């Protein structure tokens, strides 16, 4: 075990997972990951590029991924917004990559789960609650990206980027993957069967591809399959709970702590955490809220995940919002809402209504 800052731990985990290309543009709190990759990746035989913009960084990653290499990029909020066109493109032309959204807060839920690109695509998004889980998720994401030939997102935050914790970085095995027989290496030239990575999938004059209609239907089917296959969640004490608190990421760690305290004091309360924000673990949430008279949503934004909670809660009318926009004056950290005593009083005041 090693004492590492989250950004360093995630960088090392990405390299252990086989990441060999990283391009990005500084923006706090993503900057730490960028800096770590800048020296750790070349030392491991990989390529790092200090891209001149987020748009260049993500498109460089598409190019690297098109050769079959494990590639990644990252940023936060506004920088991820600049990447949206390319993330959609990667989803539709099927170049796998990991996008690290080391966000400033929880206001990027819609951005990660709905996306801002064009076309029928989704992005698998994992939201770890702490650094050790971020280390694990990083490796899982490289696997999922390759398995589904799709861009995937790690949704982090300042606490994950900057907290120093003891972690062990070791390679995890997620099982076999399909061969990357689609990767470009130039060897297809002149054979009549040269390869092509193309969102429109038109193929060659002598070897027609499926074309956009069939190709995009197939992509949509793929995301339907992911929706069923890859939902992850965590929960505790929901079976007899009158109140279930739903939260994701770092906020869920605070919820876990406060709910455990309230349980010990005799409150019939439990918590539920979507680990995958997309696909949202809807069926599990329905089951976890069967008996709940109150489903409290705690997220550090104006109410984004609450849409998914309303869709899936057993009783939609039981859903209440106890989160809110809460940003430190610096703009780079959470504000006063992310605090255990504050959260405790929010839960108790809703519980009394």
């Amino acid at each position: 075990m090693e004492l590492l800052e989250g950004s360093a731990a995630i960088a090392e985990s990405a390299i252990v997972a086989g990441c060999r290309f990283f391009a990005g543009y500084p923006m706090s709190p993503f900057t730490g990951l960028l800096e770590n990759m800048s020296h750790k990746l070349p030392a491991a035989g990989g390529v790092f590029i200090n891209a001149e913009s987020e748009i260049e960084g993500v498109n460089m990653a598409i190019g690297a991924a098109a050769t079959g290499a494990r590639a990644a990029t990252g940023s936060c909020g506004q920088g991820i917004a600049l990447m949206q066109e390319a993330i959609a493109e990667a989803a539709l032309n099927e170049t796998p990559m990991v996008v690290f959204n080391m966000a400033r807060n929880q206001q990027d839920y819609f951005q990660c789960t709905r996306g801002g690109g064009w076309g029928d695509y989704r992005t698998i998004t994992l939201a770890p609650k702490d650094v050790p889980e971020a280390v694990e998720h990083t490796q899982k994401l490289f696997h999922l990206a390759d398995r589904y030939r799709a861009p995937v997102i790690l949704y982090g935050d300042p606490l994950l980027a900057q907290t120093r914790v003891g972690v062990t970085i070791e390679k995890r095995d997620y099982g076999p993957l399909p061969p990357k027989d689609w990767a470009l290496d130039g060897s297809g030239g002149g054979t009549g069967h040269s390869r092509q990575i193309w969102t429109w999938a038109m193929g060659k004059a002598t070897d027609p591809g499926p074309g956009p209609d069939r190709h995009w239907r197939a992509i949509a089917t793929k995301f339907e399959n992911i929706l069923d296959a890859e939902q992850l969640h965590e929960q505790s004490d929901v079976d007899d709970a009158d109140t279930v608190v739903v939260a994701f990421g770092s906020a869920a760690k605070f919820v876990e702590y406060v709910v455990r305290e309230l349980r010990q004091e005799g409150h019939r309360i439990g918590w539920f955490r979507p680990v995958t924000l997309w696909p949202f673990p809807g069926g599990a949430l329905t089951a976890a809220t069967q008996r709940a008279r109150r489903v409290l949503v705690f997220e550090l934004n104006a109410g984004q995940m609450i849409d998914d909670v309303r869709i899936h809660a057993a009783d939609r009318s039981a859903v209440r919002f106890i989160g809110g926009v809460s940003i430190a004056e610096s703009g780079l950290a959470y504000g006063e809402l992310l605090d255990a005593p504050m959260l405790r009083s929010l839960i108790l005041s809703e519980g009394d209504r």
Partner: protein
Amino acid sequence: MTIDTSQPPPGGKLVAAAKPSLLLGEHSLCPGCGEPVALRVLLEVLQELDIVRRTIGVVGHGCYGSFVRIMDVDVLQCLHGRAPACATGIKRMRPDTAVFTLQGDGDMANEGLQEVLHAAARGEKITCVMLNNGVFGDTGGQQTATTVIGQRTKTSLDGRDPETHGFPVPVADLIAQLRGAAYVARAAVSTAAGVAQTKRMLRKAFEVQLSGAGFGLVEILTMCPTGWFVPAADGPGYQGGTMEQAYPIGELVTP
């Protein structure tokens, strides 16, 4: 003027040159377009340098995008303007390959000027090819950053006026200022001699890439009679009197 294709061309017997084997079919672009000519010499260069089996093309968005279907080369079709960034990722991971981009003036000079400038400044060992016809041909003839002063387009109906529309961007000249650029040239396919010169320049650009000297750019002026609203056969003459006056042909940077 219209061309009477029922009659043989005047001036003796013409025999079509052998089709490059890397061409898988007919192009679908307009009569008189210069882009298929540029594609043809590009493919010939790949064959003559014997790098066909290790070449990766990155193709942007314009009429030439349809070439992805007829060129027998491994291709990544990328987002508008971003080909030099994608080509960078490819080349860095596969230094053993020859990587080129195929872009138009709308793709490179409008949407993606930043990408090509930084790729050149970084000295990426790639070859960027810009097919410059001064209009958005694929969308029907609107003004691009390289539209010459006075040129009429669908979004500059009275001609490009610097007061209203600003001045054209000479891409090759900009790239030539950057130290990472090892070979920069501007060509034109409006004459037989120009086609031969274009091919020589493309060959040099690939040789510079293969030797590891740095970034290469060949800006090729290509006729677009449809987008210029002139008869197909008038394209070369129109180009010579307009584009080629504003954008001098020649080598700007050599190793």
